[in-house]
């Protein structure tokens, strides 16, 4: 690709950005257009499609600490965003594009190079660890998730900059006594962030620039700055209530969806994707 359509969403809340991710993905299923995007998440916990959230999280502690919780359409694990802790990215890629591998692990490998090239900007060496992680000095600094339609894939993920491990542990459904210095240390052995690796505070705006470079380098393209189209904005607004909806967030146990097969309100959305 010579040029990649690119949107910088800036600082945003998790509900809105997940609705925007889904809207752009659904519409790209019809248009086949590649898009890259970045955002800085507000304090939030973004759970995978199949996670039983009421078991994974301590909802009271999440609430007390001021975390917004939602569920996304892609699988994988928790994306935990403490305050000003990271930059997140999205990439929608046409599966017919030679730069977008059909094999899932190979596509993770390719798209995770955005992170690896961004780390280069800081003189750090990132290493792709299958299936969906990037390591820096042997520790995880980035995780990604991916969902696929018939024509495009959506991959989204994070690069950790200033991550609060203690708050993550508090929000997880584990006993308080395990959230000790020792417990935190054991996570620190597996998880890192840019500030720790560099021994200084990196501004998130600076990481944004490095991520832009990562996109350019990965796809050998220039970025064409853009905004969402009217159609994308309209579908984002239409999808927004879903990301607040407890029937979606707690889809295994709440209200009308508490049965095998869960939340199936996506039919009208599939339909929307087809319409002109």
């Amino acid at each position, binding site marked *: 690709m010579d040029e990649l359509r690119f949107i910088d969403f800036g600082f945003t809340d998790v509900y809105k950005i997940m609705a925007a991710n889904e809207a752009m993905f659904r519409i790209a299923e019809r248009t086949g257009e590649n898009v890259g995007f970045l955002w800085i998440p507000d304090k939030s916990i973004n759970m995978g499609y*199949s996670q039983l959230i009421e078991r994974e999280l301590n909802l009271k502690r999440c609430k007390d600490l001021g975390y917004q919780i939602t569920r996304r359409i892609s699988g994988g694990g928790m994306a935990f965003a403490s305050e000003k802790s990271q930059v997140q990215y999205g990439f929608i890629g046409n599966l017919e594009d030679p730069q977008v591998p059909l094999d899932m692990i190979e596509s993770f490998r390719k798209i995770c190079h955005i992170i690896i090239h961004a780390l280069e900007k800081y003189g750090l060496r990132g290493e792709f660890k299958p299936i969906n992680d990037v390591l820096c000095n042997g520790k995880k600094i980035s995780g990604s998730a991916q969902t696929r339609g018939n024509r495009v894939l959506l991959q989204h993920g994070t690069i950790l900059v200033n991550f609060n491990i203690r708050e993550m542990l508090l929000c997880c459904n584990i006993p308080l006594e395990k959230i000790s210095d020792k417990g935190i240390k054991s996570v620190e052995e597996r998880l890192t962030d840019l500030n720790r690796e560099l021994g200084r505070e990196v501004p998130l705006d600076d990481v944004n620039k490095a991520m832009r470079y990562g996109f350019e380098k990965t796809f050998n393209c220039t970025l064409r700055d853009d905004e969402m189209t009217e159609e994308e904005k309209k579908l984002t607004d239409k999808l927004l209530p879903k990301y607040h909806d407890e029937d979606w967030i707690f889809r*295994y146990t709440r209200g009308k969806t508490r049965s*095998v097969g869960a939340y199936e309100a996506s039919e009208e959305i599939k339909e929307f994707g087809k319409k002109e």
Partner: protein
Amino acid sequence: MDRLEGMKEGLHKARSGLIRAFVKVDDNKIRDIIISGDFILTPEYYIDEMEKSLVGVEASRDKILEILKKFYDENNFQSPETHPEDFTEAIMKAIGGE
């Protein structure tokens, strides 16, 4: 969380992530099932379809594995390094567990 009452939990670590199965068995048949976790399988609605394919199935390893292998054969999804055997393992741990 009424639905979870009477469901037993089984964990199995697949290469793409942890599978947490919740299963309710009655009269040696699977009556209700949740296949949760942070594993990777896309398009994701096939996970819901997988749950549906298991309701009413005899609660035995052979039968569950047979149904899941058939499910993999008949449907078009990707689940890198996560196989019918992984889901069967989580479900069997739930059936035999607390």
